[in-house]
């Protein structure tokens, strides 16, 4: 009897204890891998409530706004009739929650990010998805005027955990560009920096996040010569140390193709979604190549077959938004570089930036009371007393600015009142698309010339030699008109020279450039009374 009992007890104990061990091991595994059971999940719920209150307060509605859906708020503010002509795409990296975080070149503080998103929402901006973006670019879908796309690079945990509650509050969506080798690799669950597969799955399921590629393993600095370790995976040939030689063209092509295809396949296989987009690591699509400039021409060939959209960071002389057409090279506004240019109160300036970048209609006048969307190519730019001053900078011997929201303009007459108090020369640009595609009238002390660049090549100047007396500081009315393929330069209200505009420059905005003459640093151009008219000017005299 007793021994029988003991046997029973032993059996029960062994079974129970095995069950306990099983439950604990399994439990820890489950809790560890399942984001929903992690403490951050509860933190996120707490953050969500905090953000909700903060947003209600931001909208000046207080708690009562809680019960209003966020959609009502946006629709009451956004203009319903207007449709978007262009789409800005914002790029963020980490969003730092730590109050002790020190400002760096990549990340943004949570408070700044929250303020930026709240400000955008309040101004009526709404996010769009990649699919909506693609349809828009291909002309298949109209979008509200104030649409934008939110993207995060590198697939970092700190661009998800603090951000998601805010997206949830605002009803926004975002694109996460994942380095699949890090996030979806074998070691992923252990990492504390990159999001793991389970986290990415949960993000996808939430409906707030889209997945895109940021290469499989292409975001490291690579060895590209026996001594140089700072090469880019995508744009450089690698140094094969074991064979003591550089990669061949074929090897480069195979390596890059394999990586990019693998990253897309990984997202498809492990997250069950199709990656529509790809973001170039470092924003380098070949233009920053150290040893293989040809990569700029090779990469599109590879990428186009895999991703309809690729993201790069817009450079200073480019328009910020993306206009209907080929979505393959999609510009993004790197929130760390663009916004800083404009100043300190970043949220307000972000809204201004996007507002000013929306398509402007003709006729357009600018009294330069404030910056109405002038983007700084290079040099320095200042606004005061209804004047815009463009100057060189310690690093540039010229200054250039162009007006956002003018990219789609076609035929117009662009006139300013300008002076060069400290000498130098300047140009008015029309049909400006970027620094390699524009038509312009150059004005120096001794000549006026029609010049243009189209597709990276300079067209010969249509030059008119004349004494302009512009460098003595006199204020002159300067203009350029573009009608069809004909461009005309105006000085003091009179046409002085003209030329034929190259194909490819059928549309474009206005820009102004100044430069130093004879290494005389410190010159600047003062501009006022800007007018752009759709109608041709009445020819005087």
């Amino acid at each position, binding site marked *: 009897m007793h021994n029988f009992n003991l046997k029973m007890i032993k059996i029960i*104990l062994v079974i129970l204890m095995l069950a306990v061990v099983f*439950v604990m091991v399994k439990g820890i595994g489950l809790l*560890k891998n399942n984001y929903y059971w992690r403490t951050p999940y509860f933190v996120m719920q707490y953050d969500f409530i905090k953000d909700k209150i903060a947003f209600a307060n931001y909208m000046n509605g207080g708690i009562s706004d809680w019960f209003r859906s966020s959609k009502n708020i946006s629709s009451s503010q956004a203009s319903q009739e207007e449709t978007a002509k262009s789409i800005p795409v914002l790029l963020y990296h980490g969003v730092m929650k730590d109050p002790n975080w020190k400002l760096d070149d990549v990340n943004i503080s949570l408070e700044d990010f929250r303020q930026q998103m709240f400000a955008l929402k309040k101004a009526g901006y709404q996010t769009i998805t990649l699919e909506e973006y693609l349809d828009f670019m291909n002309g298949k879908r109209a979008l509200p005027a104030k649409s934008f796309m939110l993207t995060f690079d590198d697939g970092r945990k700190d661009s998800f955990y603090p951000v998601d509650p805010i997206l949830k509050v605002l009803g926004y969506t975002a694109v996460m560009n994942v380095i699949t080798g890090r996030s979806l690799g074998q070691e992923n669950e252990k990492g*504390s920096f990159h999001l793991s597969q389970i986290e990415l799955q949960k993000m996808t399921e939430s409906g707030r996040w889209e997945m895109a590629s940021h290469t499989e393993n292409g975001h490291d600095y690579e060895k590209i010569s026996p001594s140089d370790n700072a090469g880019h995976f995508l744009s450089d040939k690698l140094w094969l140390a074991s064979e003591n030689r550089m990669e061949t063209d074929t090897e480069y092509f195979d390596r890059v193709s394999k990586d990019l295809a693998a990253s897309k396949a990984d997202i498809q296989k492990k997250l069950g979604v199709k990656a529509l987009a790809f973001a170039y690591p470092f924003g380098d699509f070949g233009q920053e190549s150290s040893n293989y400039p040809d990569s700029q021409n090779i990469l599109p060939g590879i990428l186009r077959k895999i991703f309809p959209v690729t993201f790069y960071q817009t450079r200073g002389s480019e328009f910020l938004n993306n206009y209907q057409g080929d979505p393959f090279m999609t510009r993004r506004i790197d929130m760390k570089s663009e916004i800083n240019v404009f100043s300190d109160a970043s949220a307000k300036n972000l809204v201004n930036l996007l507002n000013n970048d929306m398509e402007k209609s003709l006729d357009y006048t600018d009294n330069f009371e404030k910056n109405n969307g002038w983007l700084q190519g290079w040099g320095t730019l200042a606004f005061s007393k209804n004047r815009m001053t463009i100057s060189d900078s310690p690093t540039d011997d010229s200054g250039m600015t162009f007006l956002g929201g003018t990219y789609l303009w076609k035929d117009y007459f662009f006139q300013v009142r300008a002076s060069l108090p400290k000498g130098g020369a300047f140009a008015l640009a029309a049909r400006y698309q970027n620094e390699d595609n524009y038509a312009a009238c150059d004005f120096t002390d001794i000549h006026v010339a029609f010049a243009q660049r189209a597709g990276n090549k300079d067209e010969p100047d249509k030059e008119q030699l004349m004494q302009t007396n512009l460098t003595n500081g006199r204020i002159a009315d300067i203009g350029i008109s573009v009608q069809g393929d004909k461009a005309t330069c105006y000085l003091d209200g009179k046409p002085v020279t003209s030329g034929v505009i190259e194909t490819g420059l059928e549309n474009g905005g206005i820009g102004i450039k100044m430069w130093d003459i004879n290494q005389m640093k410190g010159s600047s151009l003062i501009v006022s009374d800007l007018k752009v008219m759709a109608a041709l000017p009445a020819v005087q005299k």
Partner: protein
Amino acid sequence: MNTSQSETIEQVYNQSFAGYQSGINWRDIFYQSAIVLSGGALIFLIILLKSKTSVEFQVEPYFFSYAIFVTTFLLSRIITSMFYKSSLKTLVAENSSGQAQLDDYEPKVAFVIPCKNEEQDIGDSVIQCYKIKYPKDKIEVIVVNDGSTDRTMLILRELQKYYPTLTVIDWPENQGKRWGMAAGFQVSDAEIIIQLDSDSSLDPDSFQELIAPFKNPEISAVCAHGIPKNADKNILTKMQTAYYFMSFRILKAAESTFNTVFCCSGCCSAYRKSDVMPVIYSWLGESFLGLPVTWGDDRALTSHLLKAGKKTVYTSDAIAYTIVPERWKILLRQQLRWKKSWIINSIFTSRFITKKQPFVAFFYYLPLVIISFLTPIMTFRALIFIPFTKGTLPLYHIAGVLLITAIMVIYYKYLDAKNKYWPYLFLWSLVNLFVLSFVIVWAAVRIQDRGWGTR
């Protein structure tokens, strides 16, 4: 025979064995399992705490294994202890020849009290022995006056006038407690010997329960349930009272389920003389690294009995009272002695237990040995190494320890709802974590110091 008298006996019988239904008590197990389930919820919290750390830091497989190991081990203790009563009941019922004999079982018992310079307490100790509810002619008290230099002997001689069955062994030179106990065993002709510390006493009413298990001839030693007499003295004694309850009613009870109590406490245990005598010389001659072992007599004697294949049990029905240290210094010394004896005895016991009791060895004893030596390492890591190298406070570790204690406390409250000392178990586990878990290291270092450091 008077009918009403037999009824009374019947009632008394029914009362004292009310919980002793034959076989496994499934109803009890059901309720106890419910308690374990709520403990499970707490374990879930523990797991949650552990997995929380893995989000921010690298996963620590060793630490996780250790945490699972310890938690499982402590849970197994609680669950095993739930079976202790039914196990004891069937064991006692089995080999006692017929129920009729149950009440008649009253063997001759002897108390052995080794003492040295105890003029304050010895009189009371002896008188307490004679107060127990047991036929007076079957009680014998043997006091071993181990080289006292005060009036102890005088008092004993005086007592002998009142108690003719009081035997006094008078040693002019101090021989040590172990030799005193042995002398008692040899001099007495009682069947059952109760070893008593001079500051311990037995509850007179429940004494019968201490003797009852010996009905089964396979049982060689019975350990009573120890309760501190000075429980309310200060916070330290309150903590120890909570610890004693857990240590006896849960840990010892669990050991008793498989009839292998590894330490029949010195303060309150009864032994069958015929089983002790064959091992007494081996026990007396116990030495470690060339030096005789001067403490842990109780643990050593119990393990010698286990080595001889005997059964040792615990009963919560017999109550013994003892004095616990009231000052930190004394407590630490006591703990140091206990840990030293644990180290030495674990080596001795590990050698035979796998052959004699393979299930107990692998399910309980060896894990216990591993845990007791791993714990100071893990504690050092969590409390000192990690905070200093990574700058993170050991909050999760402490929370985990408190949660495990909470599981113990739930069962503690279930066992004795009126026991008011349970909150002190949390304090004790913190003291254990921060102080006592390191004592074993010190004990290992000072293992060759065989002194008592004064009691």
